[in-house]
């Protein structure tokens, strides 16, 4: 069942890779964007992918989603080579809001969330009562069921992004992949947003992969960090990440000062 309850299993199942990249490279013509990137995302993980502008974060995500084909290297989703992977309903995608969304589009909140059921439903089928029920559950998860009749363009940036999460949830995915979800969202709301992702990760045991430049805020929630700059050069826990970046920024200080800043309870 898609919207699962809390389970007693360990938080991260290291035996099961949901996403695996092996020596993945990508170039646009002569320009190399990614080179020999390795990455493994385990079941139950909450991974933040960070990196500067043009570092290849979005390219990495597009490769994982099958929107771009790597120039070389291997991509496996749920243990299958991406070329033969068909089970796309297991992947919930939340696009970058600012670039992918026309605020004038005539769709209600409920209509938008129902779209998340369409890939799973298959061609030639009309939405069923089950689809509507899943859409309701997903909207309740993000506290927007009362807003279901409103136009998506009339909501605030933070609410819109929660609608997109609900759309991804309604398909009953095992992993949520989010591309810069807080771009264009009011600053005060971004924190709540990360808390929501944390709750989904813990309560529904959803694996969460998040591309962001907003490391400081995200760090309080994520378990692991992959730092991208053409290749992936850190892939470690949030504590380690802060120790390393802090040590690089302040080489004269004692590196042990950093972990407190990450503040991450529970892992």
């Amino acid at each position, binding site marked *: 069942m898609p919207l699962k309850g809390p389970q007693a299993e360990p938080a991260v199942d290291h035996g099961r890779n949901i996403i695996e990249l092996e020596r993945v490279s990508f170039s646009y013509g002569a320009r190399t964007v990614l080179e020999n990137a390795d990455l493994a995302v385990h079941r139950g993980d909450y991974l933040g992918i960070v990196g500067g502008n043009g570092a290849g974060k979005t390219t990495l995500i597009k490769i994982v*989603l099958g929107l771009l084909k790597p120039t070389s290297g291997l991509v496996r989703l749920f243990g299958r080579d991406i070329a033969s992977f068909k089970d796309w309903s297991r992947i919930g995608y939340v696009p970058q809001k600012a670039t992918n969304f026309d605020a*004038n589009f005539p769709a209600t909140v*409920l209509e938008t969330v129902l*779209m998340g059921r369409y*890939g799973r439903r298959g*061609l030639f089928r009309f939405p069923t009562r089950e689809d509507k029920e899943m859409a309701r559950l997903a909207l309740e998860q993000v506290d927007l069921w009362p807003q279901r009749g409103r136009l998506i363009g009339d909501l605030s940036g933070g609410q819109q992004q929660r609608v997109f999460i609900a759309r991804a949830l309604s*398909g009953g995915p095992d992993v949520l992949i989010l591309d810069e979800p807080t771009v264009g969202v009011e600053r005060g709301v971004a924190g709540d947003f990360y808390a929501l992702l944390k709750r989904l990760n813990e309560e529904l045991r959803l694996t969460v992969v998040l591309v962001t430049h907003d490391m400081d805020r995200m760090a309080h929630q994520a378990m692991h960090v992959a730092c991208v700059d053409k290749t992936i050069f850190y892939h470690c826990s949030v504590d380690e990440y802060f120790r390393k970046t802090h040590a690089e920024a302040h080489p004269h200080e004692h590196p042990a000062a950093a972990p407190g800043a990450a503040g991450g309870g529970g892992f």
Partner: protein
Amino acid sequence: MLDLFRYGFALRGLEAGVAVALVAPLIGTFLVLRRYSLIADTLANVSLAGITLGLLLKVNPILAALATTAVASLGIEKLRLSKRVYGESSLALFCSGSLAVATILLSVGRGFNANLFNYLFGSILTVTRQDVNTILLLAAGVAGALALFYKELVFITFDEDSARVAGLPVKALNMLLIVLAAFTITLSIPIIGVLLIAALVVIPVVAALQLRRGFTATILWAEAISLFSVVAGMLASFYLNLSSGGTIVLVMLAVFLVLMPFGSSSGDLPPA
């Protein structure tokens, strides 16, 4: 009112007009929201080339236009996908190219100019029973195909990347949409004419969008506006002896202007 029903041609025209009025906004909603309104004009020009070809070869001009637009629509989409030209440049190439073909064919086959006038501007006087049957069949086909793929088309219209990630065959759906657009354009020709077809596809949708409703509600409003405009326009053109195509389009524009103020300014269109 009774006068109208004494004339078989007027009834035939009305029958075809209602079918066209119901189908055009269905396809128009997807085209307008994908910023592809101009494809309606392009396909209209292509259909003109098809009509002149049909007149020259003495085959049914509507069927000739149907074949030409279907082939051209696939060409337009292929060219757009090749990324060798911008999407709108692809439209411009076909727009002027097909008009060039049409004028050449016209100069070759002198003598059918009078006939052509009806196709340019539309006329319920010249609609034959066979035309009406063709229109009804096509309209049912387009509406049926849209109903089957409705939810997929809504998804790719809203967010193509997410639709692709969800596993939808986006490329095939885009092709389907554009071929259905070609069929819709062609079947509207006898009633509204090549030069004004785009209006029938675009204006009711743009007018309905002013009301700021959900997707399904917007389509239903566009249908209502279209149906009203076509029936009112045809009646007016019959009694006032005006061109049916022009009258219909002016009624649509009037409806758009009436609805305009209700659009809230908070939903301003983003800069192109």
